[in-house]
């Protein structure tokens, strides 16, 4: 992690701590909870897409695996929420390993197709394995999670809970990308052949980063489950996978900060646009289109550009 990142992280933490004291409306707080949850998955996906250069259009599956593991084990089998939480992580990383070995040998569109297929299969399993997953009707009445004697039963508590996770994951990711592994990943992104020639075990590295992003997805899934206390397959379909890719792309593929900004924008924007009623989708689409046309490097790219121009002028 370099100085700039540490500073930004510090500012972000301060802002996050102050936020619920300024904004007391629980609706805004719970919107921020979802920003945090989506942010965690987006950061993982950004490591995979932006750094390792591997596309995944099936990431909602890992989110779903985490969510369903937590839901089934706690609501139906009476497991402790934290036990289910870690089992979810274990399951997701194992599946990522099994899926990753054959599919990460693919490139470009073929990899996209393979992950798409994996996402769809998981979605169908959630739908059809009625005895375990409750099928399309989902699982309800999921218990809340608690930490150090505090039950996370209010929006404010959950806000701090989720964002603490996000900051941990963000710190981990920032450290990762500035390490030897991070540099190796970026070399894969630029040219896999060159990376191979330099003696980097690209296959192993790709699977590792795929597993990391699956773990992040699973963490976010468990956090989602214990917040909403209801899961059904419709939350983990293709649409959500695409939304996740959009978060990473809109925010800026080459930076984990971009993923966070993208997640924030795509979670807050629809809520913000509710006031427009029927024109919501129209404006939503236009905003996305304008960003892609005028800021091809994503929001973070645009911000960096503006920042640099400002410094030059000063």
């Amino acid at each position, binding site marked *: 992690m370099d100085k700039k990142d540490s500073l930004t992280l510090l500012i972000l933490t301060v802002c996050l701590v102050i936020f619920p004291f300024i904004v007391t*409306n*629980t*609706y805004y707080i*719970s*919107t921020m909870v*979802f920003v945090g949850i989506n942010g965690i998955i987006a950061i993982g996906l950004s490591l995979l897409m932006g750094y390792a250069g591997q596309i995944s259009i099936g990431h909602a599956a890992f989110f779903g695996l985490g969510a369903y593991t937590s839901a089934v084990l706690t609501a139906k089998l009476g497991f402790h929420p934290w036990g289910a939480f870690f089992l979810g992580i274990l399951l997701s990383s194992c599946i990522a390993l099994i899926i990753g070995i054959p599919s990460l040998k693919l490139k470009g569109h073929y990899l996209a197709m393979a992950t798409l297929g994996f996402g769809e299969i998981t979605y169908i399993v959630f*739908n*059809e394995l*009625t005895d375990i997953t409750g*099928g*399309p*009707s*989902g699982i*309800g*009445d999921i218990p809340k999670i608690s930490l150090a004697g505090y039950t996370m039963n209010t*929006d404010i508590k959950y806000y701090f809970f989720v964002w603490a996770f996000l900051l941990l994951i963000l710190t981990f990711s920032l450290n990762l990308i500035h390490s030897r592994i991070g540099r190796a990943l970026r070399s894969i992104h630029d040219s896999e052949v060159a990376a191979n020639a330099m003696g980097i075990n690209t296959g192993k590295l790709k699977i590792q980063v795929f597993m990391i992003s699956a773990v992040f997805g699973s963490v976010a899934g468990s956090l*989602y489950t214990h917040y*909403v*206390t*209801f899961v*059904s397959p*419709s*939350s983990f379909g293709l649409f959500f996978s695409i939304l996740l890719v959009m978060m990473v792309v809109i925010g800026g593929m080459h930076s984990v900060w971009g993923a966070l900004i993208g997640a924030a924008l795509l979670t807050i924007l*629809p*809520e913000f646009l*509710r006031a427009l009623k029927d024109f*919501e*989708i129209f404006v939503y689409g236009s905003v996305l289109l304008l960003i892609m046309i005028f800021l091809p490097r994503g929001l973070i790219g645009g911000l960096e550009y503006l920042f640099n121009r400002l410094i030059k002028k000063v």
Partner: protein
Amino acid sequence: MFKRKLLILGGVLFLGLALSVNSFAKKVDLKEPYKIGCLFAFTGPASWLGEPERRTAVWIEDKVNKAGGINGHPLKLLIEDTKGDPTAAVLAAKKLLKEGVLAIVGPSTSGESMAVVPIMEEAEQILVSCAAAEAIVHDPKTDKERKWIFKTPQKDSHVVQKIYGHMKKSGIAKVAIITDTTGFGAQGREQLKKYAPEFGIAVISDETYGPKDTDLTPQLTKIKGTEAQAIVNWSILPAQTTVMKNRIQLGITIPLYQSHGFGNTKYAAAAGEAAEGVIFPCGRVLVAEFLDKKHPQKKLLVEYKKAYESQHKEDVSTFGGHALDALNLVVAALKASGPDKNKMRSFIENKKGFVGTGGIFNFSPTDHTGLGLDSLEMLTVKKGKFDLYKK
């Protein structure tokens, strides 16, 4: 000096005038509006449910306000789109609660309703859902009705009992069931299997199909090879018409029963001649004009149907009716007990003989759906139109 005094005098006069105008304006103004929240999925994959619900809710709001509001208070609906997505529904419900709504009507689908239920229970606010799953109002863990939650659509179990009752009368003892893989189909399949022994009926074939299937002859060929005396096709998807068509193509002649999910004129039209003679239980909205003049639901149904169809140039469906019943119920509670959530809740919980589009509602502390078997009517398709089934 003089100028200054004049200025002060002018200022005081202006202030006084402003105050008096203000107080005058207050007197003329209507009483404070009653705010009711609505969660409908009018965009996204469930918009065929949400859009008629929204249109119906707006119609009711207009009607109530034209008639002078509720005890002089105008009715104000805050309608939010849930897009068929449980996460969006959760956020929208929290938003509505923050905006101070007295109750929430909706959401449209069972999944969204299940996601919103814990929020409403925690906030101790009334929710009248427009979705069918029984788990919405009934907590399976405590085996009790959820305190603040009600719903207006008929229970799946009642539809199953109605079908099986009819079969029993016609001497049918062996059935084949074919259901879709949505939440609606899965619930139906569960109930069909659960109630069969009670009616002395054996489910001898159990097939399913997906939302995008275009050819169901394999499933139906299997059924043809069994000794089934009737088929039950339980679905809410357009694919259900494929079952009807494929059945004719395969020359299957045993009676075909449909679920209430067939209650959409578009499906009858899509199936064409293959729909002739199918039997299905449904609420009375679709056959309003065939009802007896003295039927208690007749007036409401005919009024709703006429208003909806003339305004939107679209056939009325049972789904909009669920929103109508839910909203009417909340309005009735407000009229009777004012904006007090506890009184409103106990009013709804003890309401008997409430006439709705779905039937005559009789709520009780052990029944937050309030509809009995008598809310359903056996219907059939005659020359492409829904009609009462007579035999």
